[in-house]
């Protein structure tokens, strides 16, 4: 993904100002017609993971707000033994090097003109290769449907000149949408401000173009280690080693072919 980098857009999710209202989850489902998590028995599952009953990103949850109750750093001046409640709205990262797209055999997964990665639902045949390929566990097969689903960054809205539904609904601007370059600059400045104010653990996740997925279109400002939020600390595109693997495989196949050919040749001689 280099040719369209001048127009590449993304999300900067600043978890330091997230209030966990889940408006992003609801707006996403409303706009995209994502099914609710209605169970076969007509009920919903109570998870009790703090205030989170969504659980994780999946075919039917393209935004997911995590709630982490934490006996955090004692120096925080909130006066109850350093307790804090972290909230963070997770989403597809729209990786620069996207393994889901690499492995898709049908061409259903594509890179859009906005630099995002989108599943074309009318092409997906439900092979499921993309699902283990994602280093974040984002993309998922829908039960009873079989096809793969995930955040499109509201491709239809972007085409229409609108911002994605989640960013539009976010009341505190925790989810910011815009040109990726601008967002990265803004995020770096926000981290500096927070650190200067004593929030020493503030850090960006996914903003580095040199990381294992060559940077993400959706990146985050976190207040603790990524693992705390359920994010892999050092994600690597799962197809990174594929070329060398294919080279090895090709060499092995070549050697085998030579051996087989030699056997026939030998026989012919006889």
């Amino acid at each position, binding site marked *: 993904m280099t040719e369209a980098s001048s127009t590449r857009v993304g999300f900067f999710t600043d978890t330091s100002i997230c*209030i966990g209202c889940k408006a992003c989850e*609801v707006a996403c489902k409303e706009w995209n017609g994502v099914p609710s998590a*209605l169970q076969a028995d007509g009920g919903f599952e109570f998870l009790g993971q703090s205030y989170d009953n969504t659980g994780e990103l999946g075919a039917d949850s393209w935004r997911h707000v995590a709630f982490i109750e934490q006996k955090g750093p004692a120096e925080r001046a909130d006066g109850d033994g350093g307790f804090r409640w972290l909230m963070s709205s997770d989403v597809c990262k729209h990786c620069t090097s996207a393994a889901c797209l690499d492995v898709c055999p049908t061409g259903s997964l594509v890179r859009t003109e906005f630099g995002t990665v989108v599943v074309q639902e009318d092409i997906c045949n439900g092979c499921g290769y993309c699902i283990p390929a994602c280093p974040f566990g984002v993309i998922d097969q829908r039960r009873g449907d079989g096809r793969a689903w995930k955040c499109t960054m509201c491709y239809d809205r972007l085409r229409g000149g609108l911002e994605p539904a989640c960013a539009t609904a976010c009341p*505190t601007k925790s989810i910011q949408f815009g040109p990726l370059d601008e967002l990265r600059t803004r995020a770096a400045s926000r981290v500096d401000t927070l650190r200067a104010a004593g929030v020493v653990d503030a850090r960006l996740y996914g903003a580095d173009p040199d990381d294992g997925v060559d940077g993400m279109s959706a990146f985050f400002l976190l207040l603790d280690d990524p693992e705390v939020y359920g994010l892999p600390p050092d994600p690597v595109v799962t197809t990174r080693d594929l070329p060398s693997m294919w080279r090895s495989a090709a060499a092995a196949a070549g050697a085998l072919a030579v051996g087989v050919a030699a056997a026939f040749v030998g026989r012919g001689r006889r």
Partner: protein
Amino acid sequence: MAECHPVGFQWVMEAKLRGATVIHVDPRFSRTSAVADVFVPIRAGSDIAFLGAVVNHILENGREFREYVVAYTNASAILSEDFRDTEDLDGLFSGWDPATRTYDSSSWQYTGGTDPTLEHPRCVFQVLRRHFARYTPELVEEVCGVTRDRFLEVAEALCRNSGPERTSALCYAVGWTQHTVGVQYIRTAAIIQLLLGNIGRPGGGILALRGHASIQGSTDIPTLYDLLPGYLPMPHAGVHPDRSSYVAARRRTVGGWARVDAYLVSLLKAWWGDHATADNDFCFDHLPRITGDHSAYQTMLGMLDGTVKGYFLFGQNPAVGSSNSRLHRLALAKLDWLVVRDLVETESAGFWLDGPEIETGELNTADIRTEVFLLPAAAHTEKDGTFTNTQRLLQWHHKAVEPAGDCRSDLWFTYHLGRIIRSKRAGSHDPRDRPLLELTWDYPTEGGHDEPSAAAVLGEVNGFGADGSPLSVSTDLSADGSTSCGCWIYCGCFAGGVNQTARRRPGSEQDWVAAERGWAWPANRRLLYNRASADPAGRPWSERKKYMWWDDEAGRWTGPDVADFPAAKRPDYRPPEGGAESEDVLAGTDPFVMQADGRGWLFAPTGVVDGPLPTHYEPHESPVANPLYAQQSNPVRNTVARRGNRYNPTAGRPGADVFPYVVTTYRLTEHHTAGGMSRFLAYLAELQPAPICEVGPELAAERGLVHGDWATVVTARSAIEARILVTDRLPALQVGGRRIHQVGLPYHWGTKGLVTGDSANDLLGLALDPNVAIQESKAGTCDIRPGRRPRGPALPVLVADYRRRAGLEADE
């Protein structure tokens, strides 16, 4: 605020990004606490001890904004020699009548003298000082469970951030009002803000975050039994036989209430038009009279007693949302007829089929005679109208889509119901039909459903002058019958015949006050009492907090807002001895123009039935004995002694230990109040699919409660079950040498919708604030035990057993 008002909370977050300190005081660590700079966990029901200690801290350390206090509050007023404080009478004020459980406020009055040095022993300032002298940081620790260091951090932060250069705002949600001392909570906040000079100035104030959209509007043009539009009291049978007695009782010689006759006559003209003439007292006798307490809870009790036969519910779900909701369901079952207008079939519409009492066998569907009419309502997106927010800002909303099927707006329903009833009584000569038949009921209708024009209604509310043109300001209203106005405080919202509430000029295209977006009552004033934003000489207190000031050259008040003061009244104006009327009685330095003395009231000589100063009383049900006074709870609180509303014994009474824990109820972001707008929508219902009870780890260990399992919460009224969240967000508190555990209960669930569960309001009793008849739903006592509750008839057996153990069986 983040929890229940996430959209409005964006402005708090914006202020925080600009450097504001956000302090959150709450029994539970909520979404607001998560982003606050300081969180203070407090025992539910102890706020006056906390706030009173802030008052004491200000006074003892000389942190009051002295010039503001002397000039703009009643601090200097000298009180009657007969006044006795709660400090003198062990928790009672002078004037107490134990027989009627009421106060006679005659000993609370001013003598007429003042002492601007604030040193006279009977001046309000010194009375205030003595009243709160025992409200120390140590007392806060003992009563509220807040450490003194934490308390001092908050008190100092408030003081530091107030004064000529800075202001602080206090924001509360209706949780502050839902106590037997709810009005006095707000009074204590007002005392703090007046002492610190935070009223009438930008960035200051006390902001009431209401429970729903336009609840402000529903008190302005009220759904309250005791008010007419614009806070005119409802006439009382016997007390107000005619207009002159009504006006004499309400009229003040000073301030805006001097024109009450003009407001009333214009209202009567709006309602009865040409039929209202000077000869017939402008149809004053067409107004219904009240005879006592007709509040929602009293009405429910009337149903139980058979005196109320029919009931309308507009978007209200008392079977889930009102305290002692079980009693409400039993009451609905006694009605002849019930009309429910709602978006969905709520529990209040379906109590007779699958309510909890059907399961327990207390009600039998076949025996319920109530005829229920469920009429589908249009949502706000399906109709025109206004919302009035907490800033008194009216904002017009346009219909986006036609309501589906038979859904209709409340305006449509009310208009056509009135039209049909009028047609049925047409030609009647019965005097009782005159108020109905003489009503102005001629609103233009639009569209295929004959929807009345909401704009026409707003035009009537705004009012018309003698020539039929729309009025611009309430000072143009007249008592001679030449003007009409449906709500005097809204006069001007249709000025010039233009719907001012529909203005949507973006903030980026105007100054920071943004006076051209929507319309704020009164007179598009964005900040009330803004005369106080300038010093007595009319100069801004500081450049930083400049708002309205006196322009001597122009001879008028100026600034980005509309002055809440006669525009040309000089700061050095002094009223003539006698002879003046209305605003002219007040000096150029009296900013509180609706008060008879023009001052902010630290001490309230009238208007509050449970005392001129806030005093710490324990909740009606409390595990803690009042350490300040022998008087345990508010002596004037309203209680309801009847079967189905037994009270848990409070501290010191036998059986109190049967209900050892504090219980408080609240809302979650994911749901809306009684759930009618959220439990029936999959995208919202799935986010909080089950009723929960939140407990701290210590209580969980004490009672064997396991995270994710079920618990049963019990009071003398009922028992409910909920999924357990064991969380540090509800910490145990150290209160007066013991551990106090609090159980947090969101109250959104019921028997209907996509997600169902028991209603927390089943647990709560009716103990009410005596001023406003609001229930104490934020602080009570309970027991909690692991496991699900018994089903069917075994449920009332369990609750009866608890009552027996608590010694309440004698009341059965």
